């Protein structure tokens, strides 16, 4: 499988990364170089093998179901690019 400039535009949008129009084709070449190299995985017999997401064979630990009040609003907002009266300020998300 290989990607063309149109697909790169779609991937870039999925990833929310701005890519200049003239960079789409060169980027497709770069990504294809990597994707073609990756395709050697098709040689591996993976019949009946379960996909491995973690090296640890344990289930996720569960914490105690207790209320905690951290009161860390100032800490949480400390690095925000824009805040107002204790809130994050961001562009309008719902029309």
């Amino acid at each position: 499988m290989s990607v063309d400039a149109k697909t790169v535009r779609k991937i870039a949008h999925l990833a929310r990364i701005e890519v200049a129009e003239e960079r789409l084709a060169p980027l497709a070449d770069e990504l294809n170089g990597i994707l073609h190299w990756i395709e050697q995985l098709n040689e591996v017999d993976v019949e009946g093998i379960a996909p491995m997401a973690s090296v640890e064979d344990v289930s996720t630990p569960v914490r105690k179901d207790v209320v905690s009040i951290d009161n860390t609003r100032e800490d949480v907002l400390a690095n925000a690019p824009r805040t107002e009266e204790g809130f994050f300020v961001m562009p309008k998300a719902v029309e």
Partner: protein
Amino acid sequence: MSTLNELTLAGAISGMKNKDFSSRELTQTHLDAIADADALNAFLVTTKEAALNMADASDVRRARGDVGPLDGIPLGIKDLFCTKGTRTTAGSKILGEFTPTYESTVSANLWRDGAVMLGKLNMDEFAMGSSNENSAFGPVVNPWRAKGKTQKLVPGGSSGGSAAAVTAGLCLGATATDTGGSIRQPASFTGTVGIKPTYGRCSRWGIVAFASSLDQAGPITRTVKDAAIMLGSMAGYDPKDSTSIKAEVPDFAASCTRSLKGLRIGVPKEYRVEGMPAEIEKLWADGMNWLRAEGCEIVDVSLPHTKYALPAYYIIAPAEASSNLARYDGMRYGVRVDGTDLTETYEKSRGQGFGEEVRRRIMIGAYVLSAGFYDAYYIRAQKVRARIAEDFKNVFERCDALLTPTAPSAAFGIGSRLNDPVQMYLNDIFTVTANLAGLPGISVPAALDSSGLPLGLQVIGKALDEETCFAIGGALERAADFNAKPDKWW
């Protein structure tokens, strides 16, 4: 006092114990060395005032007789670890002047044990790279140069700042992280020791995430024993990281001199890759002979899926990264570049905030996770990962540890390998398997090549058996008697 920065970490601990010098003197010497090493570009931030305060506090504790295992030892911290009140960038522009309001568990453990923070170390952006050329703050320069040459060499990556700082005497040890080889390959390129412990040994809490199922913290130091001492403080169960392992932290330092008699050391035939320099082949054979002399039996083993490890990694790691790095949206922290609407603001912030390699990997990740390609790429890679883990399980029925070279070459010139991402990725060919299988791996400097550049040997152990890695690493270190240092040119 001028040589205090040439001590080992263990040597500095005994020096302070014997009252030969104070932590303040030791710390000041390192701060002076850092101020004199701008040409290496290893430190992004030096926390001079805080360092001297921490050193003074350590000296007060020592006078009281109340000292921790690392009391008064000045360390560098890779800029991937969140440090409360000190800017943390992950080597990226996108975090701006991000100043954490909390401390990573690993660094907190070091301060708990008395260590002194000198500052934050340069690295490849988001730990993605094998040469430190992907830092938004410019490349780190390797203190080592080829004999008679002035060409600037890479220190390896992504923990290039950590490795360069330790080699150059800017700190006694440094924290580092390893997702595909980012501790061990720079250690090999700089003549230092680096260990990536078993996945889960060190808490990942407060470490900027790259690929969560592979990331693991560890130390870079000048000796095997120093690495053992430092890892002993860094490691330990942490309820704040759900993948942190509930296991006792053994006395790693004690294992460095343990007898190797009767150990079976596997030598995987698939690690004899085409084009590997003859000097590295020879060093590997030397390593086998050194271990035979210690009473080990060398056994030939096979890890048949080795060649698929890197391609599998370059699906799994970017996939996890594309998900982890979705958080950098310019809303809650970091840099925001305004667009005409929310989506455009996201796209501009991320397009301008991330560097080229990070953008490339996020897009690869987004592609392999996208509808229609998820099974063909991502699920297949996870199945290949299972095959690789199974390979190790099989060989560890026949041997106690594996001996391999750490990297397929010595340090190379800055700018010499930037044109082909895949060629750059091949740096991690011998290290990435241990990440996929979650196993501990240590790199120990073992020789200089004919151009005078350091080469490392790697020992891969069974899960949670760092002790055998340290024991074999210690024996390799004694046999190699590696004590070369780079000539100071900076």
